[in-house]
């Protein structure tokens, strides 16, 4: 059973369509990186999971049960860390814990105290004196102490410096590993996803652009560059050279020529045989970020 599923989810704000039929599946126990450019609809999708936003059409399921904005009960089993933290700044961390804990049936006060200590969140200061990173850690502790079956993190590291970001992601990964908890986190930073996630979903302009493992993502986008002598050929001819009979299943993401060197970026579906060595075409080593940019770079 999937922990979280989106089925043809649509959502618009006035005239702006943000989600246009989003389909995603998050399996139980997965650490799922939810990637997309700014404005792609990541936060809208995750807020809909929490029932904060009502969807216009489609269906969202949590643990096989449909999510209704009017029914907050399923949210008791979801921990949520929002993109921006808006805590009551007059509270201390323990006071925030007591307040939040009263809404969750499985709230674990001891675990919360342990998490505060582990995350080095001060317990004697009011939240207004916290740094951005400290506030995000408090939000994570609050989310985890509710013993959720699903942890949803909406760009939790936005605004953090590199060190704090890495530390935060490491904690998330460790927690997910320790508890075997399904974790969904959205980000537009590829290295975060690469560091923590086992599965990836890429959203582009409100629809799922890619969904699969990191390895599948690595295999989904390939790039080749050619020598000067081949620059005049059609891309289809080059793809046929590379993939033979499977060339029809390949999509050209980009065909660019710079300084006389031609570069072909191709989307290759799962199960495609490896590219054949072809004289004049050299495979290019791509990072995950290169692949992400290749997939969504033309949107928006």
């Amino acid at each position, binding site marked *: 059973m999937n922990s979280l599923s989106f089925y043809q989810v649509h959502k618009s704000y006035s005239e702006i369509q943000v989600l246009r039929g989003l389909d995603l599946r998050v399996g139980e126990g997965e650490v799922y990186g939810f990637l997309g450019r700014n404005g792609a609809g990541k936060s809208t999708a995750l807020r809909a999971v929490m029932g904060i936003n*009502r969807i216009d059409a489609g269906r969202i399921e949590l643990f096989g049960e449909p999510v209704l*904005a009017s029914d907050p009960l399923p949210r008791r089993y979801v921990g949520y860390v929002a993109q921006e933290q*808006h805590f*009551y*700044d007059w509270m201390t961390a323990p006071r925030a814990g007591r307040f939040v804990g009263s809404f969750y049936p499985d709230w674990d006060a001891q675990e919360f105290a342990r998490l505060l200590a582990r995350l080095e969140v001060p317990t004697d200061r009011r939240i207004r004196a916290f740094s951005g990173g400290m506030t995000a850690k408090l939000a994570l502790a609050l989310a985890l102490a509710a013993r959720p079956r699903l942890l949803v993190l909406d760009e939790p590291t936005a605004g953090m410096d590199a060190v704090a970001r890495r530390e935060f992601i490491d904690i998330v990964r460790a927690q997910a590993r320790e508890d075997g908890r399904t974790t969904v986190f959205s980000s537009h930073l590829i290295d975060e996803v690469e560091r923590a996630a086992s599965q990836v979903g890429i959203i582009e302009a409100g629809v799922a652009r890619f969904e699969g493992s990191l390895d599948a993502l690595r295999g989904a986008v390939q790039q080749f560059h050619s020598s000067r002598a081949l620059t005049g050929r059609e891309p289809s001819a080059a793809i046929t050279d590379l993939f033979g009979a499977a060339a029809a299943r390949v999509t050209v993401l980009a065909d660019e020529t710079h300084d006389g060197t031609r570069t072909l970026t191709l989307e290759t579906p799962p199960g495609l045989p490896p590219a054949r060595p072809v004289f004049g075409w050299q495979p290019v080593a791509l990072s995950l970020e290169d692949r992400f940019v290749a997939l969504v770079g033309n949107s928006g």
Partner: protein
Amino acid sequence: MRAMIAKDLSANGLALGGLVLLTTLAMLAFIAQINLGRSVLSYLGTVTLFAGAPAIVLSLIVGHLFVSSEYLSHTQRFLEALPIRRTSILGAKFVSGLGALWLLGGIALGLGAYAARAEFLEPRFIALMSARLGVWLLFVWSVVFLISLLGRWRLACAAVLGVGYYLITLMSDFEFSRAPPQTLIDSNLFAFERHAWPWRDLGITLILSAAITALAMGLGRLRDGSFAEALARPLTTRARTFLGALVVVLTGVLVMLPEREDPVPFTFTGEAVSETTKVAISYHHPAYAARAEQLLAELTPFFEPLAKLLDSPPGFRLHITLNTDIEPWQYFTPRTDKVFGVDAQANFAGSEADWSLTTFVAFGVHQWLSAASNFRVTVEQRHWLTDGFSLWWAYHADQPAPPLDGPLEARLVEALFAVGRRGIKGDPLRYWDSTGDALGDDLAMAYGYLGWRVLQDAAGHDALLRLARAEFTRPEYGDVRDWLADQRHPLQDRVAQATGLEWSDLLARFRAAAARLRARDDYAQALARLPIPRSDIAAVDDALIYRLEFDAAPPPDVHCLALHDQTGRLAMPMARGALQEIELVARGRTGTDRLFEHRLTGEYGPGEHVYAAIECQFPYLRGGAQLLRRRVLMP
């Protein structure tokens, strides 16, 4: 929900504590002012005062603390991520804000009632006041709750509502003060209505509050709460420009509004005028000229010396208009500012038997003093002086009265009768609103009259005139300067300065004189001749039942009336002249009946409020003696 309420109270505990302290100190200050004799309010009047502008300001502060600040600081997003319905979030805010406001109202009512504990406070009366105040505060809070969800537009919205209220009051005949919810805190009803539950007003107010609260809930949930959130964002330049234009337009509208013209009710064919007397009498047919001249001559001995005593300004006059559509014992002053002085209507051309010069003069003097003082002489602490002096002048003008211990006087029998009904405990002269409500207009005047007689006996006639001149010629401005003047020179000090009598001494002499006279054989016999019956008024099914039971058959000169009128939400006390009459005990009748009952059926429908009273005319009594008055809700 409980956690939400606890959080709201905890977050705003300090501010709420400040409001509690502020309310407590303000109420204690009001009460202290009354105790020191420096305020014209009654103890329970302070609660009515609290329910007005202070309660609205407090609710705006509470609305900011409990609702607006949540949206302005965006912490509502934090709440929305919790497993709780948005309706529950809004509901918790509504409940905690209302609780805070009720707490402040409870403090005000508690302190006011405690201070007024000597004023016949029954549990039913306290319950009535609590219901009125509680439901009123609920209404105020529902409006403020809605406004508080408008974020940065809330003050503009409040200003538009305030200006709209003002414009409707100014430009239409609709009077908010006579319609619910405002009738719940009507100053004439709040601290005096002790019997009738204002079910209709309470019901309408509750329905209005529920509708406004539902609207607020809808607003808070509109577009998944993003609408209220958007309203809390900082204003754009365009929005600021719009608000600036709105302020200019509203100011312009207020400045340019024409004054409402009052229609002229009659055209007159003739007028009898005396400039020295400062009385003018208008009539609409030449046939009334002689009667008008006669009345002018009858009024001269009263109003000429009054004008001299009070040094009335040139042009100030008592303008009497003949109105043959009303009964001879009915007088009233139309609401107009077209006359400098008093504009009174009366039917002086009616039956002579029903026309009482003394009563009309007392009415005229009362109106004269009121108009000359911007009605400041009718504030509670000064009202007994005005009532008593009006009747004094109608009896004696500028001449001294005989000593109290002289031969029996019918007018003193009336005063002693009033004393017997009201009692002399506490300070009945100072708490005149409850005295007046208990006795009715005529007997209250008689009660106050005895006060002036005591003053004359103690300090002399010159001192009495000195007090009248000092009290009724004080500069009155109708604004805060009057209040400041009262603070500097409280009434008790002014009485002491003019007469040399300390207030406590005056009260002691008043009680002693009343007790002494009532103990005198002649007065005791005269009072005993007043066959006071047991009386009752009840509403059963569609009938209003009046019941009078005398110990023995009453003498023929006893005449009793059952009075009634629909009160709706009209302020109390009802004007005597506005009441319809039914003869309950006929004048000059013979027979041995001692039980009189009248069933008034088919006049009022279910749910209607009726003001009902029984009034009897006894020997020695100048006017009708109000035996019982009730505000009845028809079943």
